[in-house]
């Protein structure tokens, strides 16, 4: 534990960064881990706590340059952890209330739109089959 705190100056921010980036790069692809980030929330929390704990423990017998580094590391860790918390628990709830049109609509209006190859696809082409339409926010 003592060793861990000794290295917390770089280990903490590293864990936080890994915890943050891996959510978007890896875990967001799996619905179970995306909907509630079971891996990433503990990781960024651990990284943040570790960095701040290291700062706390080592403050008195550190030189000012190390204190500086540790302060920056702590700010970084806590900032990144906060960013993930904000994204997960606040930002992604930013959706408008369900519109009256959506509530009221009963029949699907026919439409024709282009697919990736420029071919027109009409809903009427699929009459006689069930159709699942997924609306996306875009490619990002």
């Amino acid at each position: 534990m003592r060793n861990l705190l000794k290295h917390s100056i770089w280990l903490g921010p590293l864990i936080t960064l890994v915890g943050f980036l891996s959510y978007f790069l890896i875990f967001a692809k799996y619905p179970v881990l995306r909907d509630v980030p079971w891996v990433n929330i503990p990781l960024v929390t651990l990284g943040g706590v570790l960095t701040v704990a290291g700062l706390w423990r080592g403050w008195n017998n550190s030189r000012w340059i190390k204190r500086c580094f540790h302060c920056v590391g702590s700010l970084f860790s806590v900032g990144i952890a906060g960013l993930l918390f904000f994204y997960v628990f606040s930002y992604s709830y930013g959706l408008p209330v369900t519109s009256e049109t959506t509530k009221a609509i009963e029949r699907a209006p026919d439409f024709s739109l282009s697919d990736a190859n420029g071919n027109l696809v009409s809903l009427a082409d699929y009459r006689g089959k069930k159709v699942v339409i997924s609306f996306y926010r875009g490619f990002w």
Partner: protein
Amino acid sequence: MQTKIEEFEARDVVVLGISTSTVGEVKEKMIPMGFTFPLLADPELKVIDAFGLRHVAGYPTGEDIARPAIIIIDESGVIVEKMLTENWRVRPTAELIFEKLDALKAG
């Protein structure tokens, strides 16, 4: 949905995707992600508006986009299911859609 596309096909259910991305954007950015079902371009939000799914300034740069939604339409064009989410990180899973489809069949 893409990973379960064969199960949709086995159920004889058509899957379509719609977003505000243009044909070019879909081709460049989304097709390489591995989508095989038709992704339809609605940059003018015509269809998105027809379903009332416009999210004003939903894109981080301020453009309007569609809010995520799953709409299930039956054989005669009647909307039988509207699955909306309160959080755009959290989308209905393919399994949940299959459950709804099975319930519709049974009903």
